[in-house]
């Protein structure tokens, strides 16, 4: 009862699943859970716990804390750029999909944008569940080809002199964008600064923080 890596069989299974699955998403997932629970392959309370973990504990607030720390602590900033997994581990945030994390830093001359054109790779343990648009065909297809057009749709206009760097997550590396600290925030502490950091700014679909 182990994985056999039989791609031809899986292609056949998908053909069957095309017509044999229940008609609605909710019913399909319900059927899946029922079959797993009946066979003792999953405990429904464990599913509950995973949902709670990614609703209440793990999410973009972690990423925002990392960014705010980097803004306020030059040594941490340096460690984050040099060895991001170790730096996020200091905050207890190392976990699912972040063992090969890289941090890419925005500057006045550079804007970074992250995508996964082949699937939906995302640094779960620091940003939580990816937004639906990140996983949708519209974003995955265009981010590498028309990043400025994509950014404009998010309300971000990039000066023609700024270089846009698109990071396509084709391997097990994951990318976190370190946005620029907004001007006029010199008096704010890390906790206050973290509130200015948007989820999208850490993916790269937001740039100038602290502006209404």
């Amino acid at each position, binding site marked *: 009862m182990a994985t056999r890596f039989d791609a031809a069989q899986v292609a056949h299974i998908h053909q069957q699943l095309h017509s044999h699955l229940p008609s609605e998403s909710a019913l399909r997932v319900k059927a899946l859970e029922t079959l797993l629970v009946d066979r003792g392959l999953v405990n429904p309370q464990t599913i509950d*716990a995973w949902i709670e973990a990614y609703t209440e504990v793990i999410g973009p607030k972690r990423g925002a804390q990392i960014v705010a720390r980097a803004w306020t602590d030059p040594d941490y900033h340096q460690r984050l750029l040099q060895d991001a997994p170790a730096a996020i581990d200091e905050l207890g945030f190392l976990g699912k999909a972040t063992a090969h994390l890289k941090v890419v830093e925005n500057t006045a001359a550079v804007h970074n944008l992250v995508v996964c*054109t082949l699937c939906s790779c995302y640094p779960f343990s620091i940003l939580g569940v990816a937004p639906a648009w990140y996983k949708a065909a519209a974003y*995955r297809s265009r981010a590498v080809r028309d990043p400025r057009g994509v950014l404009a749709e998010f309300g971000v206009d990039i000066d023609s002199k700024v270089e846009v760097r*698109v990071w*396509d997550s084709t391997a097990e590396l994951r990318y976190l964008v370190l946005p620029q600290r907004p001007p006029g925030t010199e008096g704010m502490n890390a906790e206050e600064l973290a509130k200015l950091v948007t989820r999208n700014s850490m993916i790269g679909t937001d740039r100038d923080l602290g502006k209404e």
Partner: protein
Amino acid sequence: MDGIHDLGGKQGYGPIEVDEDETPFHHDWEAREWGIAQSARTPGITIDWWRHCRELIMPQDYLERPYFDSWAQTDFSTYIEAGWMTLQDLEKNGAESAGANMDDDPLPALSLEQVLQEDREHAFRFDADIDAEPAFAPGQAVITASHGHAGHTRLPQYARGRHGTIHACHGAHVFPDLSAQGKEVHQHCYSVVFSAAELWAEAAGSPDKVYLDLWESYLVAG
């Protein structure tokens, strides 16, 4: 494989739904599927095999069914392929339990603290030391392979046969094309930077860059 999943550079998918609220799940069933995917994995499965099973979803289903629905379908396919359940079980819609519990004891319920600990343990590494020296060094010009193959691979179509430059060496990482067949082989992996103009005719004169992480066998010296 040259599948529907390989979306980079494709056109016609319309505007992005940018106004989505930031809650992690928008329906209960999405949350259930998230939890299932974290909790129930077939023995011996690799991330690349799971990705390949998702790529093998029929194109119309891949594009039309919601994202977490495609996860459910991927999970179904891995469970059926591994013999955990059958298509016939599914046709009964889970109404009737065809098989006895595979474990003598029911699985214990994990608490929030326990799954958070598991999440920390899921910081899986994919790199290893290998004897072979990296074939390329930062700054070196490379050309990507012109062709893919029918199996799982991580060189997207839009970056095939293109001239790039090695930006960084990541060390040796598990090679996905073989990992999707259950074989763990490490190969040097690189961050490769391409000018937007090299990839897209309409980007002539653009200062923009696209970075991909690519394995050594996808590359030759440029």
